[in-house]
C-alpha cells in the first residue's frame, strides 16, 4: 500500500476522531496553544526590544567615543571610580592638542536646572555645557537658527540651543529663535533649536538645553569632572584611537605606570554588548518558560494520545486484521497528534502575536514580529505533536492484533 493511501486515509481518520471528541481536542489544543502563544509573545517582545534599542544606540553615533571618569557600565567597585581624579579642562586640551586620530573634541558637562519662558516653567531640564564642536560629536542636528560659536564660548555669552522637547513645550506656537528664556535665574537668548533625537533607554535626549562651556562653568559652581566627547576621523580606527587616548591621558594625568587607567573610554557598542549580556539572560529565562509551557502542552498531547490508543485498541485490532500495516497505524495516530498541535500552534500564534501587540500598545515595551516567527510557531507546534505523538503511535502500531481484538 502506498504512502498516499496512508496519508489520505490517516488524515481523514484523524480529523473524524478529533471531531468525535470535541472537548478533549479543544483542551489539548489549548495546551499547545498556550505554549506557542507564550513563546511567540516572548519572541515578539524580545525582537521589539532589540530593534528599538538598536535604533536608540544608533542615535549615539557609531564614530564617537566618550572619555569620562567613570565607565558607563560599572561592574564592581563604584567607590574606586568615584574617587578617581576629575577630568579637567587641561585634560580636554591635552586631547585636543595631541590626538591626531581625533577629528573634533568637545568638553561635555551636564547639570539640571529649571527652564522658563514667560509663565511656562520646565523643571529639572538637563543643561549641557559644551563647545561649538558638540553637534559633530553627538550627532545632534540644528533644526532652526544656529548652534553657538567659538566666540559665544570665549565671551561666556548667554546663548542657548534648545532640545526639541524644550522648544516644543515652551514655544508651541512661536519660533523660539531670538526669544529670551530663563535658565535657573539667568536670562538666555535662544539662538537655535535641535532636531529631535528620541529616547535612549527610556530617557529623552531632547529634554535639554545646550549652552557654551565657559558660560556653564561660570554659572554652575563646584568642581566637576568633565566628559571628553570625541568624533573619530576614521571609524575603522577606533582601537587605535583608544590606544592613543590612553597614552595622552595617562601622561596628562600622570598616572603611575604600575597603576591601571584611572579614566574610562566609553563607546556606544559597549553599551550594546552590556545590554545584550543583561537582557540575554532574561530572554533565556523567558524562552525557557515558553519551552516548558510547550513541553507541558506536548505532554498533554502524549497523554491524550495514549488514552486514545487505549480506547481504540479494538479498532486498531480490526484495522490490522483487515490489512492495515503497522506504518498505516503509526501514520494515523501521528497525524492525529500533529493536527491537534498544529491547530493549537495556529491558535497560539494568533493569541501570542495579539498579546504582544496589545502589550506594545498598553506598555512602553515595543513588540515587532518577523513573518518568519509565525511560520516558526506553527511548525514548532507541529514538531511538538510529532515528537510527543511518536510514542503513543508506536504503541498503537505494535499492539498484537490478536490481543487487540480480544480487548473489550
Amino acid at each position, binding site marked *: *500500500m*502506498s504512502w498516499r493511501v496512508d496519508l489520505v486515509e490517516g488524515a481523514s481518520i484523524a480529523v473524524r476522531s478529533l471531531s468525535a471528541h470535541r472537548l478533549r481536542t479543544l483542551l489539548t489544543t489549548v495546551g499547545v496553544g498556550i505554549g506557542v502563544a507564550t513563546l511567540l509573545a516572548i519572541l515578539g517582545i524580545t525582537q521589539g526590544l532589540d530593534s528599538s534599542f538598536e535604533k536608540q544606540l544608533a542615535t549615539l553615533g557609531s564614530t564617537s567615543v566618550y572619555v569620562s571618569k567613570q565607565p558607563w557600565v560599572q561592574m564592581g567597585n563604584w567607590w574606586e571610580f568615584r574617587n578617581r581624579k576629575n577630568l579637567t579642562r587641561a585634560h580636554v586640551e591635552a586631547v585636543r592638542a595631541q590626538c591626531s586620530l581625533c577629528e573634533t573634541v568637545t568638553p561635555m558637562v551636564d547639570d539640571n536646572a529649571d527652564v522658563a519662558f514667560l509663565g511656562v516653567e520646565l523643571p529639572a531640564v538637563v543643561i549641557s555645557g559644551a563647545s561649538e564642536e558638540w553637534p559633530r560629536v553627538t550627532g545632534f542636528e540644528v533644526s532652526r537658527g544656529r548652534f553657538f560659536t567659538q566666540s559665544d564660548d570665549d565671551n561666556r555669552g548667554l546663548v542657548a540651543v534648545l532640545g526639541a522637547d524644550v522648544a516644543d513645550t515652551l514655544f508651541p506656537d512661536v519660533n523660539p529663535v531670538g526669544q529670551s528664556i530663563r535658565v535657573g535665574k539667568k536670562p538666555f537668548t535662544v539662538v537655535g533649536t535641535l532636531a529631535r533625537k528620541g529616547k535612549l533607554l527610556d530617557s529623552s535626549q531632547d529634554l535639554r538645553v545646550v549652552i557654551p562651556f565657559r558660560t556653564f562653568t561660570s554659572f554652575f559652581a563646584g568642581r566637576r569632572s568633565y566628559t571628553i566627547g570625541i568624533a573619530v576621523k576614521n571609524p575603522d580606527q577606533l582601537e587605535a584611537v583608544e590606544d592613543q587616548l590612553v597614552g595622552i591621558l595617562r601622561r596628562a594625568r600622570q598616572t603611575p605606570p604600575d597603576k591601571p587607567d584611572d579614566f574610562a573610554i566609553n563607546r556606544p557598542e559597549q553599551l550594546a554588548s552590556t545590554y545584550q549580556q543583561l537582557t540575554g539572560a532574561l530572554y533565556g529565562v523567558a524562552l525557557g518558560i515558553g519551552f516548558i509551557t510547550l513541553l507541558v502542552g506536548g505532554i498533554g498531547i502524549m497523554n491524550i494520545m495514549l488514552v486514545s490508543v487505549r480506547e481504540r485498541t479494538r479498532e486498531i485490532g*480490526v*484495522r490490522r486484521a*483487515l*490489512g492495515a*500495516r*503497522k506504518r498505516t497505524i503509526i501514520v494515523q495516530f501521528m497525524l492525529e497528534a500533529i493536527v491537534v498541535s498544529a491547530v493549537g500552534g495556529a491558535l497560539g500564534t494568533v493569541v501570542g502575536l495579539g498579546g504582544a501587540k496589545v502589550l506594545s500598545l498598553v506598555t512602553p515595551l515595543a513588540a515587532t514580529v518577523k513573518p518568519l516567527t509565525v511560520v516558526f510557531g506553527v511548525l514548532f507546534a507541529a514538531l511538538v505533536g510529532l515528537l510527543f505523538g511518536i510514542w503513543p503511535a508506536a504503541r498503537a502500531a505494535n499492539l498484537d492484533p*490478536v490481543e487487540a481484538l480480544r480487548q473489550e
Partner: protein
Amino acid sequence: MLIELDDIAREYVVGGELVRALAGVTVHIEKGEWVAIIGQSGSGKSTLMNVIGCLDTPTRGTYRLNGHDVSRLSDDALADIRNREIGFIFQNFQLLPRETALANVELPLVYRGEKAKVRRARAIEALQKVKLDNRMLHKPTELSGGQRQRVAIARALAAEPSLLLADEPTGNLDSATGEEIVKLFEELHQQGHTIVLVTHEPKLAARCPRAVRLSDGLVVGDGPGEQVAFGGLRP
C-alpha cells in the same frame, strides 16, 4: 489445495511457563470446502484460527495458503495477505462503531488502495448479497445483532478473499437470528466460497460438511460434520 497446515505448533510463554496451544496440527482444506473447527475452550482452536488467519505465526511447522508458504513472513507481508486472502467474521462483529455500515464494508478495500468509486461500488454489491442494501448508511449501533453480523459478512465478502474465516459467528445471537446467519453461510458455501468456521457448539459444527475436532492442541477428529461434532471420529 487452499490451506495446507503441516505439523503446526504454537507455544507461548505465559508467566514463565511454557503453554503449548498447538502441538503439531496437520489439516488440509480444499478450495470450496466448508469446514468447522470444533473444540472445548483451551483446545487450541482460537490459536489455530489466528494462524490460519495470518494474525499469528506458528513456532513450528509450515502453513501454505494458496500454494505460498506464509508461516515465516514479515509483519507487513502478513498484513497484505490478510487483506487479500482472508475475510474475517468475528463473534462480536468487530465493526467500527463510528462508521456507517457502508464505510465498514469499504475498509478492507481502503487498505488495498482501491479508488473511492470502486470501493463504494463493491461495498454496495457486498451489502446487497447480505440483503442489507437498505441500511447502508446506518451506524452499527442502529442495527440489530443479526444485521451487524451481516455487515461483518459483507465486509468479509467485499474484499473477495480466498477464505472466509468465521469465529463463533452465531455466538452473540439468539437462535432465530443465528439460524439466519447459518443459512447465509450455506448460501455462500453453495456459491463456492471456502469457509472455515471456529465454534464450540456441536450443533453448529454438525451443519458443516466437514469438521475438525481439536483437543489439547492436537487434531482428535476429522470427518463429516455430524459425526465429528457428536461422535468424535478418529482421523
